[in-house]
């Protein structure tokens, strides 16, 4: 492999990894907060992509400018999912883990079905935008602008998340609620409100990823599946509930997958990713940065 090809594969892996991390962090956040695995996470991503596409088609403004609207919409959507579905699932007296799984999984099927009904199963894409299809070459290494933009957004989102968690009252309330749900009630924190905001935040983060992805990826009702699968691996590898574990694991998965596709038949490129995941889970069941 030439040095140029090496750096190309590395850069592509890192850029994709940042995006994987951004997709996964919302999932990790929600799990860390309340021990609920959102099986509709891929569908959240898909909804965000359709929201971007729909706004673009109606308003006719570049997807980059639409991002705040998409995030706001996804925040409301995420909070509504908590208040309308998950809150009730959590009340189950017996086997509440299973109830939560079925509730979010059922929600996933519902969202897919409704999307297919509303938007048809046709593949949509945003054909022309400021960034779409543009690419810069640095010493023969091609960096597609949508992915560079996505990587930048991802880094900023993680920085913002760090500040939010460490510097704000909301962050402290999140942290306290995940530590001990019962105790926070005693100091006057409304658990339900924190959970709703947590779901809103988780959905907004995947919304961020969706608004970037919509620029360069096709959009259809099942688009979330392959990304969600990667997100589950990223979350488990990085450590359930660990925000920065998600960042590290996202980058690892992106780079490993990228090089695996060169080193072996690309059809098998996921195998090293899963092997790595298995290895980590064997040695450190809580994941790389998990605190469980």
């Amino acid at each position: 492999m030439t040095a140029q090809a090496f750096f190309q594969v590395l850069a592509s892996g890192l850029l994709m990894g940042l995006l994987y991390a951004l997709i996964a962090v919302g999932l990790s956040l929600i799990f860390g907060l309340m021990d609920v695995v959102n099986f509709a996470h891929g569908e959240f991503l898909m909804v965000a992509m359709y929201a971007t596409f729909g706004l673009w088609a109606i308003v006719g403004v570049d997807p980059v400018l639409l991002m705040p609207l998409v995030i706001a919409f996804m925040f409301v959507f995420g909070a509504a999912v908590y208040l309308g579905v998950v809150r009730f699932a959590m009340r189950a007296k017996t086997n509440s883990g299973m109830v939560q799984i079925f509730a979010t999984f059922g929600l996933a099927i519902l969202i897919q079905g409704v999307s297919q009904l509303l938007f048809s199963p046709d593949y949509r894409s945003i054909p022309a935008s400021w960034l779409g299809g543009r690419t810069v070459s640095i010493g023969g290494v091609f960096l597609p602008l949508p992915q560079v933009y996505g990587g930048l957004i991802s880094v900023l989102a993680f920085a913002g998340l760090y500040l939010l968690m460490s510097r704000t009252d909301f962050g402290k309330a999140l942290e306290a609620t995940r530590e001990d749900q019962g105790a926070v009630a005693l100091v006057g924190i409304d658990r339900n409100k924190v959970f709703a905001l947590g779901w809103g935040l988780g959905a907004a983060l995947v919304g961020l990823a969706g608004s970037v992805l919509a620029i360069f990826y096709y959009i259809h009702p099942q688009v979330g599946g392959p990304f969600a699968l990667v997100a589950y691996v990223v979350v488990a590898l990085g450590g359930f509930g660990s925000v920065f574990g998600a960042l590290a694991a996202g980058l690892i998965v992106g780079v490993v997958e990228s090089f695996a596709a060169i080193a072996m038949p690309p059809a098998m490129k996921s195998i090293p990713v899963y092997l790595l995941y298995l290895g980590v889970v064997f040695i450190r069941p809580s994941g790389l940065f998990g605190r469980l």
Partner: protein
Amino acid sequence: MTGFNRRHVLIGTAAATVTARPAFAQAPAEIVIGALYPMSGANAQVGVDARNAFETAVDIVNGMHEVALPGAKNAGLMGLGNAKIKLVYADHQADPQKGRAEAERLITQDKVTAIIGCYHSAVSNTVSVTCEKYGVPFMCADSSSPSLHRRDLKFFFRPAAHDEFFSKGMFDFLDAQKASGTKIETLGLFYEDTIFGADSSNTQRKLAAERGYKIVADIKYRANSPTLTSEVQQLKTADADVVLPSSYTTDAILLIKTMGELGYKPKNIVAQAAGFSEKAVFDAVGDKLDGLISRASFALDMAGKRPSITYVNDKYKARGNRDLNDNTARQFMAMLVLADGIDRAKSTDGEKVRAALAATAIPGDQTIMPWGKVAFGADGQNVDADPVLIQYIGGKWVTIFPKSVAAAPAKWPM
């Protein structure tokens, strides 16, 4: 979560869906045919388009139409007292096991006379075996893997070409280009990891060896992958004279986008249709595909030689808001061939319909395809399903090969 994952939930859901559907009563004046397609999942649009193609065909069979197609002039099936065809749809979600379960349901509960399907070769594989078990004819409309008709199945029929015909057509074309002085020495294979990609690439590899082309990239990729960057990087490094992709829609879009992102413009692409005949691909990345060549069973610009094409395309377009393509044309024609067989069998008995289908003899000008005729060999394959090569130029498909039907010479390089 002990021992419980998303797949289990999926299987449970599928089973619940299958068992929850009521068997419905059928009027005796109706011939029920099962259409088994991806109606949800990543390729659901294929199912939607197929449905429009079948409805167009059934409309022509059930009504009276002045057009040169089998069964068009009479209302319904003459051989069965003008009985009308009724279609029952089932969803296989591109999953061979779901396909098999749904085929059983169609046969045992809906009592279908025949099954038509299934787009994905991997699904047609399991469904045709199930049909064989129950003695119900399987009309393979649009799956092109060559291995499908080589399993000694008595109830399997495929009017369209398979990938060996198609690939042979491609290599005949490459040979002809070479003979006219174009430099074509190296090929890049790029194919997905199910039976379609495997069979297609096997044939291409064999033909390349026989005819002296060097394969400089042989890339089997994972279907529906979130990214194809490393895969395309290898194609770019190899920079073959011709890239031969075998991809369904999603991967076709991603492949072409990624090529653009990595600054790779292939010298030429000769595609094994599938995704590369879908409107969605050209809506998404059509600007990068000018000059793309694809194999096809069908070409709209042959309407001069086959006037029925315009008639059928208008009817199809009214339903689906798009032109007939390689897939939908094959689906349409397969339904007419099946109806013709049932009509001549004068029965809905599986064995009798099978015998009638085996004796099919439809002249080429009674089809909308470039075929010589429709007549099945002992293995159920139509041997006169001549494919064509078409090129995407200025937003339209132009037939470029073979010379006898070509509307224009190929633009080379793309």
